[in-house]
């Protein structure tokens, strides 16, 4: 089901990048099968932690790290895990990496950990990660799984950054904490509030799908 757009969207420079199958594993997560804009997975962190560009970046990178590690471990154990207990095993692996990430973020900065709060532990239930373990890593080699996870993770980070940058700029007049807009600018506070997440996501999805439809026609 995830591959349904595969044949349609091969246009322009993207097609030229897709020479080898391994590049394709990487590129598809960034664009054609972008986890947020195309697969619409992992909406909880996407909407909740994209209120500032900094938070979005940290959340995206944390998710990417968990995705990378779990995809590689699942892939390397794929012949060892019986299919009856595979979901339990994947969740165990994912949860462990999330715990490791939680400690690492605490070690990096207490403030960052405070900002991301409860959402770090919620990476466990991000369906993107379990989805990639089940749909890709359990059937492919470690190298391919690595590229798949890297692409998907960076695609996720990219999408979160798209949302976070717009929301922070419009809602707070700044980007990554640096004030960009003049002081006379009246902030749209609603954009940093939860509702702003939905508005911004809707606009990005509109743009993304509009662009896709156009490039398919061409």
């Amino acid at each position, binding site marked *: 089901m995830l591959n349904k757009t595969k044949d349609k969207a091969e246009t322009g420079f993207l097609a030229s990048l897709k020479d080898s199958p391994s590049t394709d594993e990487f590129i598809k997560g960034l664009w054609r099968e972008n986890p947020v804009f195309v697969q619409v997975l992992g909406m909880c962190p996407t909407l909740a932690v994209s209120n500032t560009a900094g938070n979005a970046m940290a959340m995206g990178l944390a998710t990417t790290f968990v995705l990378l590690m779990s995809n590689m471990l699942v892939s390397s154990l794929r012949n*060892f895990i019986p299919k009856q207990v595979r979901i339990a095993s994947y969740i165990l692996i994912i949860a*462990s990496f999330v715990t490791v990430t939680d*400690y*690492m973020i605490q070690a990096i900065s207490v403030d960052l950990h405070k900002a991301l709060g409860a959402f770090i532990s919620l990476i466990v239930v991000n369906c993107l990660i379990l989805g990639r373990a089940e749909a890709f890593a359990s059937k492919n080699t470690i190298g391919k799984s690595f590229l798949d996870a890297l692409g998907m993770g960076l695609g996720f980070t990219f999408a979160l950054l798209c949302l976070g940058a717009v929301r922070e700029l419009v809602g707070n007049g700044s980007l990554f904490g640096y004030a960009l807009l003049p002081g006379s600018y009246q902030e749209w506070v609603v954009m940093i509030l939860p509702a702003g997440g939905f508005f911004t996501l809707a606009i990005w999805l509109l743009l993304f799908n509009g662009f896709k439809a156009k490039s398919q026609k061409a």
Partner: protein
Amino acid sequence: MSEKNQSNTNTGANSMKMLQAMVGIGILCALMIVLAFEGTMPRIEQNKAEALEKAIFKVIPGMVAKKTFKLNADNTFVPVEGAEKDAQLVYAGYDEQGKLVGVAVEASGLGFADVLRVLYGYEPEKQQVVGFYVLESKETPGLGDKIEKDAAFLGNFSALDVALDEGGDALKNKPVTVKHGEKANPWEIDGITGATISSRAIGNIMGASTEYWMPLIHKNKAVFVQEKSEQ
């Protein structure tokens, strides 16, 4: 008959395989978590100590120097250097002239999600809580976490009355959280609509902690003042 036996052994072998996989992955994951925990612990403790240090200066207005005191079993305070594990510590703050401006106390209790750790500053002169900061909270983002962001709620702690009764052994009035908009007395904490449980938890934590610490600190006030002037 033989077919039945065959399937029995198959299931047995399958179960064994499943068990092996689950136990194997369990051990692997446990090892990973323990390694990460041990590896990051010193750094995390250092970060937390730094955050606490910063918070102490936030909750006591006008303080420039800090001294840590430990509560002994006989209810007296002695100064300690650095952080001591498993000790009950309070932090005295002094202004430029070396005058005691406040004592910071850490308190914790159960919030809506997991344990809440807070720090508040007590001014012995006025017998008031003069500052408040949430050190650790996993409250629901957007709702419960208002206890650390809501300016009106934090305003409760700029002059929260914790005066002692005549005997000096107990609080005249224990701080308590009331419904939003119903604060009538200086010892009441105006709650937050939409964060009822979290703001009430803060009230409980503050009530229990001030009830315990305020008489102790008040009785030993001389210790905090003298220690600094001796230097």
